[in-house]
């Protein structure tokens, strides 16, 4: 059978203009530049050195068979969204050729074209038309859409009065009821509450697995991708690194190492965090073997994490804590800096260091995202919010020592005391 999507050597070039500080080209700049050049007697000379070519995609070729559910993964800027835009015909490729056999619906954003002044009912028709549904089609699905979105009571209310949750639910509901042969979805599940996200994923699974649709799906939620997709494409710097079964592709991506942040990057993120009258994070250090490490650590030795911060005022109930999460964002454990204290601690103004030592034989040989969190108990969270350090743990500990190399799949690797006796 012929593939439903055939992508042959697609490339996309952007021309970056370095000189202009503004986002848009303005005619006045073009004119004034031409005049300047004309004065120098070089009207037709191209401005050199101010422009740079950037290839968002280079020689990307792949095929997708009908019923495939393809997850596209890669770091930010790898070209994922550009690829989806080209496949959706929003943007034109610079080179190459794509053949698509079937009706395509793309969902690159939830609620594209929703107008705040219009009512829920009106927006269903508007959004449906924008997504390429006919009026008859929308009418026949109308009740299902309203049911799915749970907005019956507010159908005749302008959506500007909707809560953000209702808005997203309605928007997704319209999209979810399209019936294209090929569905292209970009990172739309990043919105909405957890329960609704689950419902959306369920709906997508339904659409793809049970109804045999072809789905192309971009998400940063690796878990969602691995649940939903059977094939994976891993993009880096505009090129395909791997196109394979989803598990193998995800594994390749996670072990590529490019996902790690350098210490410079961490310092920058700390410096850029918003200021707060009660708290300022100064430094975060991950230390092993008495030296600061970036990214790679071993689980056979102690691992020290040192948080340095200023408290400009006396604070009661200040807490620093760490969430150790796996690379899919699931928390494995949380640890508080004051968990061995009796009662709530008060700290005078000054500079402090909170330090944790994680003993050997705790961490598993996997990737952890350690979320650094700061807060005043029952009052509020303090910035920086969502500061994450990623570490890649290598197995050197005692756990399963005699059979090292065998990955057991556990998220922690505790070396626990067993006894074995012959009886």
């Amino acid at each position, binding site marked *: 059978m*012929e593939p*439903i999507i055939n992508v042959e050597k697609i490339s996309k070039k*952007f021309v970056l203009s370095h000189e202009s500080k503004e986002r*848009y*080209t*303005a*005619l*006045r700049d*073009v004119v004034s530049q031409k005049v300047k050049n004309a004065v120098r007697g070089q009207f037709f000379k191209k401005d050199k050195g101010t422009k740079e070519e950037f290839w968002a995609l280079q020689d990307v070729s792949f095929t997708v068979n*009908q019923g495939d559910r393809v997850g596209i993964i890669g770091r930010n800027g790898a070209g994922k969204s550009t690829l989806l*835009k*080209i*496949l*959706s*015909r*929003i*943007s*034109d*490729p*610079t*080179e*190459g*050729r*794509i*053949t*698509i*056999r*079937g*009706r*395509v619906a*793309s969902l*690159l*954003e939830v609620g*594209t*074209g929703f*107008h705040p*002044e*219009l009512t829920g009912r*009106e927006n269903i*028709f*508007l959004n449906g*038309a*924008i*997504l*390429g549904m*006919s*009026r008859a089609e929308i009418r026949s699905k109308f009740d299902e859409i309203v049911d799915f979105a749970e907005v019956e009571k507010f159908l005749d209310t302008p959506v500007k009065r909707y809560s953000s949750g209702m808005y997203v639910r309605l928007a997704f509901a319209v999209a979810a009821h399209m019936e294209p*042969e090929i569905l292209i979805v970009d990172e739309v599940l990043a919105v909405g509450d957890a329960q609704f996200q689950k419902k959306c994923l369920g709906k997508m699974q339904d659409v793809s697995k049970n109804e*045999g649709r072809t789905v192309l799906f971009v998400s940063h939620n690796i878990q969602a991708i691995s649940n939903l997709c059977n094939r994976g494409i891993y993009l880096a710097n505009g090129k395909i690194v791997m196109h394979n079964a989803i598990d193998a592709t995800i594994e390749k991506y996670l072990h590529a190492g490019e996902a790690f942040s350098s210490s410079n990057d961490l310092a920058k993120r700390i410096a850029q965090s918003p200021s707060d009258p009660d708290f300022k994070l100064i430094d975060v250090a991950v230390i092993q073997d008495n030296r600061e490490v970036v990214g790679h650590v071993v689980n056979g030795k102690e691992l020290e994490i040192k948080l340095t911060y200023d408290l400009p005022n006396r604070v009661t109930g200040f807490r620093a804590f760490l969430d150790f999460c796996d690379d899919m964002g699931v928390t494995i454990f949380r640890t508080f800096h004051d968990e061995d204290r009796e009662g709530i601690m008060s700290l005078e103004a000054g500079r402090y260091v909170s330090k944790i030592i994680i003993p050997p034989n705790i961490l598993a040989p996997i990737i952890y995202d350690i979320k650094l969190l700061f807060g005043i108990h029952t009052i509020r969270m303090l910035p920086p919010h969502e500061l994450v350090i990623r570490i890649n743990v290598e197995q050197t500990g005692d756990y399963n020592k005699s059979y090292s190399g065998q990955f057991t799949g556990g998220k922690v690797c505790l070396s626990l005391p067993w006894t074995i006796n012959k009886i």
Partner: protein
Amino acid sequence: MTTGSPDNIIIIEPGKAAKNYWRDLWRFRELFYILSWRDLKVRYKQTVIGAGWSIIRPLLTTVIFTIVFNKIANLQETSKAPYALMVFAGMLPWQFFSNALTEASNSLIGNSNLISKVYFPRMIVPASSVITSLVDFGVSFLLLIAMMVIYQFLPPWQIVFLPVFIVMVFLAAFGTGLYITALNVKYRDFRYIIPFIVQFGLYVSPVGISSSRIPEKWRLLYALNPMVGVIDGFRWCLLGDPIHWPSFFMSLTIILLFVWLGVWYFRKTEKSFADNI
């Protein structure tokens, strides 16, 4: 499932103007209706008097023109119709042109969220904004009828040709609008040019005067302004004023030239809208 049926095969290649462009445009006609409907609905929802605006604006302008030109400057026109009626018959197409041009020129930028997230033939966006202005034109037209009743003025038989001139002004606004809105995506300061065209155009078009006041030898040159032919045509249909056919065809040629230029430039740049917007 209809996979593989030749109707559904889409080929994406760089620079290749989609072979099925005009068919696609037809296929997306529902989107066109619904975008026009949205613009109208939103427009009338947000204002207190809603459709009243399309009556008040031309009416006030006509009153002022009548007072300034006819009463103060004491300008007498050759038209058979009363002065106010003559001004209004010119004001009608002019207002439509200026509204449609303004709306169409800003339409792509105003719908940038759609352009960057969904595929559809982009021409739908400026076209639907011109349609919105056409509805305003319809409302203002009711006022013209009312005025004719008040002045007890019976339009001549030529009124049957009015649709031709409506199509003409539609094309004038659409062609120019297409060109400017596409330029607007690339050069954002083009939007400052439109109010200028609109304001300037009111005075270089024969809205307050009849173009028969222009000396014969300059009339062809005057008709390079496409609105000259349109306004003359409106007066010919509605009031039975004489029409200068050479200048009418001159204006028509200019309009068709603009439509061709607009469509050509729009289609040439259309593919890069999403990258630039």
